[in-house]
């Protein structure tokens, strides 16, 4: 058994220090050590996107990063984005459009959607579909999700004008 490693990082703005096994992945660290269960685990091999979180501003698969790799990083999860209000308009669009059913993919989907809204605010339907292609949804058929993200993009760009 390998020894525990010390890590320090910021999670949703809160300073965290912890002792973790080097093999512990970030998703399990967030869920099991910090109780941030909004980050979901669907496949544990980087395909489904349910564990998508933000590390130092970029979206990452929390199941493909080790907790020790986020030493000194700033990690944001769906709880952080919700509490700060950063994605409240996107969440409202998802609610209006019923862009989720079971809700299991939704935290990861919102993280990925917010990412394209930040980096390509003028994204069209096709670009949104492409960008969300790393996030599986088994319930909605995607149509409603694309509608919700497109509506948010349009509303934000009108607001920016």
């Amino acid at each position, binding site marked *: *058994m390998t020894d525990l490693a010390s890590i320090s990082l910021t999670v949703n703005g809160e300073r965290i220090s912890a002792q973790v*096994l080097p*093999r*512990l992945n970030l998703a399990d660290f967030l*869920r099991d050590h910090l109780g*941030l*269960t*909004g*980050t*979901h*685990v*669907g*496949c*544990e*091999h980087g*395909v*489904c996107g*349910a564990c998508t979180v933000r590390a130092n501003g970029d979206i990452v698969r929390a199941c493909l990063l080790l907790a020790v790799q986020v030493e000194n990083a700033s990690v944001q*999860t*769906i*709880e952080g984005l*919700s509490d700060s209000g950063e994605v409240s308009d996107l*969440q409202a669009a*998802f*609610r*209006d*459009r*019923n862009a*989720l*059913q*079971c*809700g*299991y*993919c*939704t*935290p990861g989907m*919102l993280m990925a959607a917010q990412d394209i809204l930040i980096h390509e605010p003028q994204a069209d339907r096709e670009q*949104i*579909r*492409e960008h*969300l*292609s*790393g*996030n*599986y*949804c*088994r*319930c*909605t*058929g*995607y*149509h*409603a*999700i*694309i509608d919700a993200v497109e509506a948010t993009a349009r509303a934000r760009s009108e607001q920016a004008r």
Partner: protein
Amino acid sequence: MNDGSEKQPGLSVLDRPNSYIGKTVPRPNLDRLMQGRGQYVSDMVLPRMAHAVFLRSPYAHAKILNIDETAAKAMPGVIAVVTGAELAKVITPWVGVLSHLKGLKSAPQHAIAIDRACWQGEAVAAVIATSRALAEDAAEAVLVDYEELVPVTDMRTALDPDTPVIHADLGDNLAFERNLDAGAVDQAFKDSDEVVEAEFVFGRHTGVTLEPRAVLADWNSGEERLTVYLGTQAPHMVQNIAALHLGLDEAQVRVVCKDVGGSFGIKVHIYADEMATLALSKLLRRPIKFVADRVESFNTDIHARDHVCKARIGVSKDGTINAFEIDDVTGIGPYSMYPRTSAIEANQVVNLVGGPYTTQNYRARTRVVFQNKNVTCQYRGVGHPIACSITEGLVDLAAQRIGMDPIEIRRRNLIRDDAYPCGSPSGLKFEALSHHASLDKLVAMMNYDALRAEQAELRKQGIYRGIGIGSFIEVTNPSAAFYGVGGARISSQDGVAVRLDATGRVICQTSITEQGQGSESLTAQIVGSVLGVSMERVRVILGDTDNTPYGGGTWASRGAGIGGEAALQAAKVLRKNILDVAAAILQAKPGDLDIVDNAVVDADGGQQRIELHELARIVYFRPDTLPPGFQPELMATRHFVPREYPFAFTNGVQASLLEVDPQTGFIKLLRHWVVEDCGTIINPQLVDEQIRGGVVQGLGAALYEQCIYDERGQLTNANMADYLVPMSGEMPDIDVGHVVSPTLESELGAKGAGEAGTAAAAAVVSNAVNDALSPFNVTITEIPLTPRVVLAALGRI
């Protein structure tokens, strides 16, 4: 006065002022899920909770000679290593048969295999440790001696005399056979101008719920009670089965179902490893959690479909379809799943083939065979995609043979919209369907003629587009005819209890469950509408056998039609009770009063008389002010199940527009249309999204999804990178339209909508691909339609 009692069935709550029924309103539980504040079983933690990991057979068929757990038991964090024989002391085996499927047989199945593993992935031991990681470490140190046996993998040869018999006691590998011969089939084929034959092949696929199966079992030996936290579609069924096999009374078992990360029928069953987890909790007297990882999900979540079906159709030159005939084989794995059985899908295929059409000449045989592969069972649209693909594939082949447009041949053969009630040759009873109205609407929505013109124009440029059409029927609102008559203790009734609390809010307990379909929303919409209470004031409690009426749960598209009607009826009783109280307080007649916007008002004029919270205050805190002898009842319960028709059939039609690249074999979906008739629509948005989600699951089956086994019974693509499911980039927009024919079996008039999308999606994609490839004189009747399949058909590989 408008309490519904004087109204015609199907109309009562629909035309109340401020009715939520028929309106798109947001689901009440969405914010929680979007903020990451849902509670799925995988999120739950209990004091002293330990984690179970199952050691699984690497062989499809093998004797277990010895299990050496010495090293594993000495490892850090390990609490126990438990074999099948040890676990059998606290849990009995089961046999997955139903008596109404005559001749269906299966072998006793243990929670953990004892002497023999029958598929790659069957659990042979459990390791329990303080964390999942430590349990996984220890599982690697458990040494199992196996003697590999010959696996039975090919369903086409499963019944051959030289194929080994998987369960010797059963005599052969035939689990179930059904034969049907209706009308005058031989004569009908003889009278046909053309007879077209094809062999349809359907890949084995699985649900891939995004949250894998998860269970947390908590045996409290102080209370002698087992609490099971499980993402399930049928809590009371699980309660019954758990009690039965653990030697407990039902009252000793509580099943709690919180948020569920996808179900699609995958989570309507109870699995051997889940049963083992319950037993482990009882054995070890502490909470035990098991969360399947993705590889385990692929190997142990039920699979479905896996059919090979020879089929033919007889048609006259004028387009009249004279007969259908099918000979179907399906492989179900080594056991018939318990308690719903694995023969239901094949049975449904026999029931549904030819269903939308008038011909009464129909012959069918299905044989359900055992294999050494993971078990198959009911998955979204049970049997529908198979039956629809066969039927609609044959109809298109017939049309092509006689040179008739696919729309025209359907118009000439679909059951007329004024022909109901009527029956099918397989014995189905149809109350009221709308095939022609639906087809007309679809043709208009998709602008069919323009698409055909565009297709012809593009074909000149070497662009091969195809248009596929498929009509379908869909089984919803099942009565006791589904399982009850076969002896399964799966409730076909659902119940709802509604009460007005002391602050004038409404609490509603229902036996249907929520996995994202919108059960909470539709229940609140119905109750709010009937009571005249705003939806925000209605709280819905579900998924808890201690705290909801006994009922079936949410499967086979029964939530809205059965649970919704129970909610309507319960709310009507409560409404009457509230008006009785109001009349007593106000010294008025109940019939002169109504409830609107959370207050009792005069039925004439609408003047507000007393707010519900004030009425409730008087009832609960000052009943001494009520007239002597008057006992207010601010709670009511009602149950419902359809009785006249064993199922509510819905109908619909789908169309696909796609493009095939003959160089690469790739298929690009361009557009998809659905028209569906689910009767009364409670929430249009939820219905449309059920249909869209179902369509995409059907498109996955059509193009990507397949559990691929090798000849040794090894599942070779048991991960999400190799088992492809649809992603947003490949999926088209899906247009949904409706025709509305309410069922008269209930006052609400709602039928289900959950299977509709899946039912015909693969059929219309196959038909569209064949339409696109018609210049090459190629017909493909196999799914998934991978590039390899397309290129092979084109003779390019």
